[in-house]
């Protein structure tokens, strides 16, 4: 992954506000969003009240004080984890917010314009932006061309061109115009812009729970209820024998058993997952989209720029029979002299002629209508272009045309693109333009295949070319001569088969497909329509990142699953610590269950409770960084996580509680 270096988690500027918020987050209205931690807080309150009663009675308080202390600490640790996760986004949000506060715009009215605060701009208003201005609101360039620095959003300082019409018309509030001017029609209401969304995202404020998070909360709440029954019935069971259990002890058992560990870390895991995406320069519009990314079965990848390098390279000249190679090379060279595209330059380079251009020439540029380009040297017309376009220029010798078509097919079959070259009335031959498949991409696709993800290459090339490139790049399938409608159809077909589809796109004509796909990553350079339609925006405009986005989605869910497993497995050891401690007075024989050999019943109960509390901050780094993720099959993934977090969750607390017991009894705390 090309992830930016991980910031250290426990830095002072993050920890200090997080510590403060650990307390402000005790507000019940906030706490209740997490039922398990809310329950823990209620129980801690109960323990505190009982402690006061004991103090009033002047009873022995040492044990009860510690119980209450660790219960509160459990809640605070949970709050701390959440605050710390949020804190990482907060700083970024502050910067964005100050940018937003100073935005002003020149609203066009009649012939003049008036200077207004950005918050007064409504959808449909037109503003003028000039060199040095910050763009006040998201919108579309309707007139003019401007070069814009989007570093405020992307962190990338290279300026980009924004112009009216086409796929490069969208501008974002907070970015700076560094040259020229443009008129921009505002496309969003105040508060609903990209900047606002980004602030909300990085801050994690009012984060809506994702479906999986809700389901997990249900599970954890359900488990809490079950343990409430298991622990709540104990006094009655013990009353049968004529004994009793002190409430603080019951409370300690209850909190030790309920899944506090995962509950405390749950929202931190979610926030950290979003944060990972943001630091990866991808903005997800919702947590739901991140989860969906982990579920992707089919990836639609554009060929150009994703699978192959953006530019094709000329790699060979193929002459028709009866034509000297030198003739073809010269014509190809001449026709490309005026062609400043990378392809044109690669032809010149391949021709290898270190001589100056002839005099008295006129460049004929490429247009979408003719699809040919070339050079006029006096009356001599040298042209190159797409084969069918060149053949349409005039009537050529039928034999030459036939041969040309054969060459074309041959090139297409190996994944190349042929350009036909003519000199006047003669058809000379073809230039073989080769698509360069990115290095390492084949291995990436193999990994994806292992993870059960199918890759489909989308290309405008003809099927023969597409097939050859697909084979070279190792994608599972391809869609050749793809129109936006084809794309949409493919997505629907995959979805009908029960698959989740991800794609990226930038043009307005990609918008329907982006909207239809389960994960649609819009390029930040893309049109407003595309950015609206997708549920993620890639600020770096790098379509390859789709693969990493899938990984981040998976890692988020895996972290949740792993910590849930760990948390629940811990209960076994906690039972073995606390049950004998509670019951040994009734049935001395039950000391046999004290397999850890904990020193005293009080120490056993405290040690379990302490372990239960301090495991939370110990796992914060894991929750924030996510569990190690490797592209591999689900089966191997499960074995790995089950043995680390399941088995580890069984064993770790036995060791941890024993060690804490040493400390607690050694210090004479119980």
């Amino acid at each position, binding site marked *: 992954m090309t992830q930016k270096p991980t910031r250290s988690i426990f830095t002072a500027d993050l920890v200090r506000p997080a510590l403060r918020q650990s307390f402000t987050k005790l507000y019940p209205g906030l706490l209740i969003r997490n039922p398990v931690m809310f329950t823990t807080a209620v129980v801690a309150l109960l323990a505190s009240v009982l402690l006061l009663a004991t103090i009033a009675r002047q009873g022995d308080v040492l044990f009860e004080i510690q119980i209450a202390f660790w219960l509160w600490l459990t809640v605070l640790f949970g709050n701390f984890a959440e605050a710390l996760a949020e804190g990482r986004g907060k700083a970024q949000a502050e910067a964005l917010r100050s940018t937003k506060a100073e935005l002003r715009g020149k609203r066009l009215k009649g012939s003049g314009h008036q200077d207004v605060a950005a918050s007064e701009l409504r959808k449909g208003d037109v503003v003028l932006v000039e060199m040095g201005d910050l763009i006040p609101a998201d919108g579309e360039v309707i007139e003019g061309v401007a070069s814009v620095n989007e570093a405020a959003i992307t962190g990338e300082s290279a300026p980009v061109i924004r112009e009216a019409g086409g796929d490069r018309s969208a501008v974002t509030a907070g970015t700076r115009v560094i040259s020229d001017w443009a008129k921009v029609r505002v496309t969003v209401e105040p508060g609903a812009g990209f900047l606002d969304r980004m602030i909300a995202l990085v801050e994690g404020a009012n984060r809506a729970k994702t479906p999986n998070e809700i389901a997990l909360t249900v599970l954890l709440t359900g488990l809490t209820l079950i343990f409430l029954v298991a622990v709540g019935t104990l006094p009655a069971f013990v009353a049968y024998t004529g004994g009793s259990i002190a409430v603080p002890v019951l409370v300690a058992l209850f909190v030790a058993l309920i899944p506090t560990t995962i509950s405390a870390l749950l929202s931190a895991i979610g926030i950290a997952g979003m944060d990972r995406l943001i630091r990866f320069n991808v903005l997800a519009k919702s947590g739901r989209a991140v989860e969906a990314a982990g579920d992707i079965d089919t990836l639609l990848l554009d060929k150009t720029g994703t699978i192959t390098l953006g530019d094709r390279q000329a790699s060979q000249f193929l002459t028709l029979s009866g034509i000297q190679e030198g003739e073809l090379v010269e014509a190809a060279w001449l026709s490309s002299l005026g062609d400043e595209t990378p392809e044109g330059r690669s032809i010149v380079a391949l021709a290898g002629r270190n001589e100056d251009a002839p005099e008295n020439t006129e460049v004929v540029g490429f247009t979408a209508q003719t699809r040919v380009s070339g050079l006029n040297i006096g009356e001599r017309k040298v042209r190159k272009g797409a084969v069918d376009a060149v053949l349409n220029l005039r009537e050529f010798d039928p034999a030459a045309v036939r041969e040309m078509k054969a060459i074309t097919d041959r090139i297409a079959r190996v994944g190349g693109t042929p350009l036909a070259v003519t000199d006047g009335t003669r058809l000379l031959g073809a230039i073989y333009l080769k698509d360069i498949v990115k290095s390492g991409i084949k291995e990436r696709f193999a990994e994806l295949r292992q993870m059960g993800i199918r890759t489909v290459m989308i290309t405008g090339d003809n099927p023969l070319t597409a097939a050859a490139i697909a084979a070279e790049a190792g994608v599972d399938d391809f869609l050749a001569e793809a129109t936006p409608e084809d794309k949409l159809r493919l997505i629907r077909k995959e979805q009908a088969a029960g698959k989740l589809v991800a794609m990226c796109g930038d043009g307005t004509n990609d918008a329907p497909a982006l909207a239809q796909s389960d994960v649609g990553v819009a390029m930040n350079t893309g049109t407003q329509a595309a950015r609206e339609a997708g549920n993620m925006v890639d600020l770096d405009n790098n379509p390859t990142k789709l693969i990493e986005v899938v990984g981040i989605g998976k890692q988020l869910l895996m972290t949740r699953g792993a910590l849930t497993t760990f948390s629940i497995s811990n209960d*076994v050891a906690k039972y073995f610590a606390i049950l004998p401690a509670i019951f040994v007075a009734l049935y001395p024989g039950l000391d046999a269950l004290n397999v850890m050999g904990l020193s005293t019943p009080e120490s056993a109960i405290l040690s379990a409770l302490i372990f239960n509390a301090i495991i939370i901050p110990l796992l914060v780094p894991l929750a924030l960084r996510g569990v190690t993720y490797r592209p591999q099959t689900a089966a191997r993934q499960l074995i790995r996580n089950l043995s680390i977090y399941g088995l580890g969750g069984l064993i770790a607390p036995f060791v941890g509680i024993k060690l804490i017991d040493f400390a607690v009894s050694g210090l004479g705390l119980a």
Partner: protein
Amino acid sequence: MDHLFVILFIVGGTALLSVPLGSYMKWAMDPAPNQADRWTRLFQTISGASEDQDWKRYLVTLLVFNIIMFTLTFAILALQQWLPLNPDARPALDPTLVFNTAASFTTNTNLQHYSGEVSMSYLSQLAGLMWLQFVSAATGIAALTALARGIAGRSGLANFMVDVQRASFLVLLPVAAIVSLLMVLAGMPMTLQGSAMATTLEGATQTIARGPVAAFLAIKQLGTNGGGFFGPNATHPLENPSFWTNALAMIAILLIPMACVWMFGRIVRRIRHAALIFAVMTVFILAKITGSVFFESAPTPAFVELPVSDETGNLEGKELRLGATTGPLWAVLTTATSNGSVGAMHDSLNPLTGLMPLAGMWLNATFGGVGVGMINMFIYIVLAVFVAGMMVGRTPEYLGHKIEAKEVRFAILALFAHAVLILGGTALFAATPLGQATVQDFGAHGFSEILYEFSSAAANNGSGFEGLGDGSGPWNIATGIAMLLGRYLPIILPFAIVGSLVAKRRAAETAGTLGVEDATFGTMLGLTVLIFGALTFLPAAALGPIAEHFSIP
């Protein structure tokens, strides 16, 4: 050595038999469009019902039929003194006992707060109780069939009234007929004559109760009903005359619950998945058998100080003709399957042996009751898939169905209900004279008696630590309610889960999908059953059997 042979013979033999029976049950319960047409038409004619039901309609019909079952049996039991087939003139029953017994047999529990040969007329036994042993088991099989159809992705679950007849007539009836004829050949009584009078060699008079035992017994075992014809159930020599009837009975106990797993696999078309579930269940059952046989080979603790041979293990409450292994083996099988018939007195089992049947009822899914055992396992599967699914980095999916908040909520609610019924009931009776006054042995063992009774009722098992004086009104009412809730909640909730699954877009399975056919998932499922199912009950176990074990010197 004989232990191993017997266990292999019973468990292994039944496992082998269950495979073809599972295929047959798929044919009978869920025939392909052109299969068994005549039967389907016949059953539609009998019931006058043929509509394709969605899960709600199916459930309503199921409940209506179960209400009919309850009402009819209630009436027969309440009026038995006036009805025919009462050669020994059994008198009227206590109303709370009538309620408890009707609830008990309707819910496939067969908890018996009476002694059959003492209290029941032959009509009550046959038309009331044996009828319910057929139709309550058929209800379970029908429910599983419908559930499996839903999981297979069909939104129409067919018709309950047809399914319940398929289960009664095509599955239970033929198998019961075969088993009962074999039982007759092996020497089991089958008569409508009243008690026999004998003058013993020493001149005393002995009244020997008998009756139509063979017919009753076959369906009692096959349908995981478990209600004995006689009070002491299958320890009674006339209900279990020999080692061979005993072996056959144990096979019958295990057979249909095992076959249900295969039937499920065939309906959802994932036989390897079914095989994995089967394997997980088998591991649990073998672990419990090993434990119970081991603990029961220790001699009776009451005799430590006495010159009593300690070579034969604990024989209190056991029958010599059945062999040394079969007491604890039966105890495990009957509780693993929610059967509840007994081949030895569970109250007199050594403490940790007694923990094994308790654990069986707490989990209630290691084969479990006919139909419902696999349904209970489905709950654990949902939870295992949910946690494991996250661990492979995807929204959890089970056979292409996404497991989300709704499914998790219903699944955890089912486990919660099970815990509340058992622990809540036990707490109420343990802390008050309601239970304290009825235990036979005070101390940890008495607590186990109460715990066992509620576990048995909630798990729809029916066996008991029979030293408990459970014939009182409060016991009849409390366990009656526990049985009803313990029966219908675990049917309603999984149906709701499937109803929600069916409504969703089905996901394709890829290499990135959690596999539900490999050993890793098996491990995960096993751990889920253990942790979600058993951990809740560990404190209770510690105060019951475990405390008793450790307080024996």
